[in-house]
Structures are given as structure tokens and as C-alpha cells.
């Protein structure tokens, strides 16, 4: 599990890898925090839950990271402990795939300091790929 910053002219980009999808999501959140220079306070831990339904894992990843941006901007919160569950594709009564479901329990605290905010998570060339070690993706963030 890890990430590396990828050079991008206008914005920020990170290649993230992990052994399974939940870890990939959690590591992507960690990458986002570190790229933004987020320092999370140590007091008054808070918990939040988040659920999303999307057509595929990439859309869930964008929804999850966008949720973190919302908390950062609105409540000055950042999260560093995640319990994630990515469920298999859900079928409707008509047997049409509605995609996958993501459930997240997360724990964090008030942001003590931040260098620069990430404003959005993009779909640019976003693809979660299976590797011999698990999963890998490269995310471009709008800053």
C-alpha cells in the first residue's frame, strides 16, 4: 500500500496502489491529505459515515474523495481512519445492474493547518486496475 506524486503541469496527481479496493480508497484519502499538507489535530475525534452507489469502482472513488473535500471545506475536518466496504454490483428487480455500493465509516478531527486545498477530484484517465499485488490507480486533483 502506498502512493507517489506524479508530475502534472496545472494540478496535482498521485499514483496509488494497495492490496484490495478498501485499502486503495483509504490510501487515496491519505494521498490527498498529504498532498494538501493537511495536519490533523489530535483532540476531539469525530466520526462520520458515508454511503454511495455508483456505476463502477472509479465513480465510488470520486464520490468518496469528493465527500472528504466537502468536510474539509465546510467543517474544517480531515479523516485518517477508515473502515470501508465495497459491495458487489447490485441488481434491481429488472435485473439491470445499478453498479456498486460503498459504505464508509471514518474517523478524524479538526484540521490544525493546511497548505493548499484540493478543490475537486477528476475522472481524467481514471481507471482502477488489477495488478499482481492488488489494485492501482492514478488520480488527478483540481487545485
Amino acid at each position: 500500500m502506498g502512493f507517489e506524486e506524479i508530475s502534472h503541469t496545472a494540478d496535482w496527481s498521485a499514483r496509488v496502489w494497495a492490496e484490495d479496493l478498501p485499502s486503495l480508497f483509504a490510501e487515496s484519502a491519505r494521498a490527498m491529505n498529504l498532498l494538501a499538507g493537511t495536519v490533523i489535530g489530535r483532540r476531539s475525534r469525530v466520526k462520520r459515515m458515508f454511503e454511495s452507489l455508483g456505476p463502477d469502482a472509479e465513480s465510488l472513488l470520486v464520490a468518496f474523495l469528493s465527500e472528504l473535500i466537502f468536510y474539509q471545506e465546510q467543517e474544517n475536518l480531515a479523516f485518517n481512519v477508515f473502515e470501508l466496504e465495497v459491495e458487489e454490483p447490485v441488481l434491481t428487480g429488472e435485473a439491470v445492474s445499478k453498479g456498486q455500493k460503498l459504505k464508509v465509516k471514518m474517523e478524524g478531527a479538526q484540521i490544525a493547518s493546511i497548505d493548499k486545498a484540493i478543490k475537486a477530484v477528476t475522472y481524467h484517465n481514471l481507471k482502477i486496475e488489477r495488478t499482481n499485488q492488488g489494485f492501482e490507480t492514478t488520480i488527478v486533483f483540481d487545485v
Partner: protein
Amino acid sequence: MNIENLVQISETEWEIPTTIRHDMRVPVRLFATRELLEQVINDKSLDQAVNATTLPGLVGHVIVMPDMHQGYGFPIGGVAATEFPHGVISPGAIGYDINCGVRLLASSIDFESARGEMDILATLLNKYCPSGVGKEGAIKVNGKELDHVLRDGSRWALKNGYASEADLARTEEMGSLEGANSEQVSERAKTRGREQVGSLGAGNHFIEVDVVDQIFNEEAANIMGLYQGCLTVQIHCGSRGLGHQVCTDYVQEFQSAVRKYGIDLPDRELVCAPMDSPEGIAYMSAMRAAANFAFANRQLLAYSARRAFEETFATKTRNWHLHQVYDIAHNMGKIETHSVDGKQVKVCVHRKGATRAFGPGSPGLPPEYKKIGQPVIIPGSMGTASWVLVGTEDSMTRSFGSSCHGAGRVMSRSKAKKEVQGDTLRQELEARGIKVRAGSMPGLAEEAPSAYKDVDMVVETVSQAGIAKKVARLKPVAVIKG
């Protein structure tokens, strides 16, 4: 891609023909010198321009400006026109910061006589124009009031005493796009916007005090009220979190729309929907609402900048006032009529990091600008020159009435942070007589002048190409950044 794949048309114009890739619907037309092209050949701008040519319903060429650089989905500096109403609209081809743009205010305050006041002016601008990572703007609006902002833009500001009729007359679309519908803006987007009206934000947004350094077109400068040696103010920002959320919401929603309409694209960030589809209509009206938010936002920042000028200069000079030269968007989708292959065609012009540059006589310009063309404001990189240009007849026929929007990045943010120390940069700028107020030193380092192309070269290119004409060059004396 390499330069050999391109067809050179002139010193400043190149084409990527449709033979380069099988899925291209139209060619790409680039305005750039060889030197500027060589600066971006190793990033993904040209590949992204080729990807943009796959959007259904395109007419003419996809145009790329000399300040082009790699973005996501669509290149920065890109212009694409799709036939109205059956062609598509793509949120990613407009960008997250909907109606990011620049407002230029000008004064008749002589810089030499005001030099001693620059420190206090920078401090007051920093005090009254909230900036940086965070959410609070100059004012807070409730839900109902926000709906009015989204519907009316600068007209809302006028009604509430933050604007004058003269400000609106010199704003693109009078600062208020018709067809905005706040019901198509999500509650989450509204939550992000509610407390951000009148705030600058962070990133590459700034307020800059400049001096008119050189005048190239006396007549146009006089009409705009730009006087040699006098102070001006540029305000560069957009629709803040609200616009970002609108784009996020619709890029997410359009992931399904492209499947529904059978649209195949090389990059998911380019997702789109036909303009006459329910999804396209919803995005168009939400995008217009976000654009109105941005117009109101820059109007409030102008109000705050005037307050700082009044407090600094009112007791020292009789005429301390800041009049508006123009306010122009560089991330927007607009329904316009353009000449394509000799026919007048109604299109949606997507401009992402490209400025509308309407020529003389174009509709929608205030009477005084009908003769000279629309002012085009080109902010430079921090510490370097900025430019005021005007649109031309040529821009109307060759670039869908568009020109460049800035210097354009050439160095990655991570490299800039490694190579430049924010504190050192600040000292260097101060030593050159530029007052700096910055919320974040790493953020300042990312915006170092060395991370950008030479803005003079970019402007020279659009000028030589004939898609804009020079009016005045500005040089910075104070910069306020988040």
C-alpha cells in the same frame, strides 16, 4: 505526439489533421510559435486537444491558444464549438471553476505620487478581500438570497448596493446569464457557496494592483480609461466551491448519460450530453447559475477593493475612484452565433482557459466598445506583466471569438515547490517593489513566475496571429494571494 505530426500554416498557426487518429471528428487548430509549442510538447496538451475532437456535434476546429497546457480531459487554453441544440455540452470542457475570470478596474491615481501608500493599500486589500483556504466570504447569504444570486448574478449585487449600472454595462453578459436555474444546483453546491460570496479563495487566484506601463493603442486605452502611469486592479477568481460542486455533480451524472446516449469518449472527464436532452438542459441551467455566482463574487470583491482604495486615498487625492474596464470569463459555455464554412451557425462555445474576444461591432458589447472591440484581460504570472487587448474581426472568423487567458503554466506544481522557496520568492518580489500578501508560502512557491511561460511571448503570438490587438501592458506593484 511530436511537432512533425503537425501541419504548419504560418509562423503562429498549426493544425493537427484528422488523419492523426481515427476517432477525430474535426481537426485541431493551434495558435502558437514553434518555441511555445516546444514548451508543451512533453505534457499532454496536444493529446488532450485531440481527445476533445471526439465530442459529438463539433463544428469547425477545436482551437488551442498559445498559453495551452495540460489540464484534465480538455486542455487549458482550449475552445470547442458544438452545434446547438443537438450537439453536446461537456462540463469537463468548461472546467470546475465555472466562470473563472478576470475583472479589471482602473483609476487616475498616479503611481509615483501613491508609491508610499502601497504597503497600506496591500494590507487593506488583504483585509477586505477574504482569501485563502477556507470558506467565509465578505457576506453570508441565506438560502433564498443565494437563489437570487444564482438567478441574477451582478444584478443581485446592483440591487443590494454592491454595484453600479456602469459596472454591469462593462461586464460580459451584463454579469447575469439568462436561463440560470438554481433548482438544478444541488443542495451540496449551495451549501458550499452560501458563505463564499465575495471571497477570493486560493490556488492561482489573486488580486493585483498594477501600473499602466505601456500603451499601444491610445484610442482604445482612452475609451477604457487606462492612463499611463496610473493604478489599476485585477481580480482573478471564479465560482468557488459552488462551481466546483456543480461540475463534480454533473461530471458524475454524465457518466451514465454517455451510456444512455451511446457516446464513446477516450477520457471519462470529457463526459457530455446533448444540449437538448434533459441532462444537457439541467447542466446548462446549473452552469449558468454558477456563472452568475462568479459574476456576483467578483462584483463583491470589486466593492471591497474600492473600499480599500477609498480608505487609502480618499483623504489624499480627490479622484481615488476605481472604474470598471471590463469583467470577462475564461471558463464558460456560451450559446453564440459564428460563421462556419460561410454559414451563420448557432453553437455552444466551450472555453476552458480561453477568453471571449469579440471584435468590433459584435453583439452584447457596450456602445463605447462596439467601435474598438471587446477588452480582453490577460493576467500574467505573479511578478510579471499583464496585458489588455481587444478582440478583432479575425478572432470572430478564426477562433470563435476567443483569445488566450494568461501566461500558461509550463512547470509542474511539485517541481515549482521543490525549486522555489515561498519566503525567498516573496523577498525577491518585495525587492522589486512588489508588495506581497500571501496566505500560504508553499502556495506562493507553486505560482512562481518561473512556473509560467513568458506572457509577453504569448500575447505577441495572438497579436501576430491577428486574433487580438494590444492596447496596454500593466506591471504589478502589489499582489494579494490566498
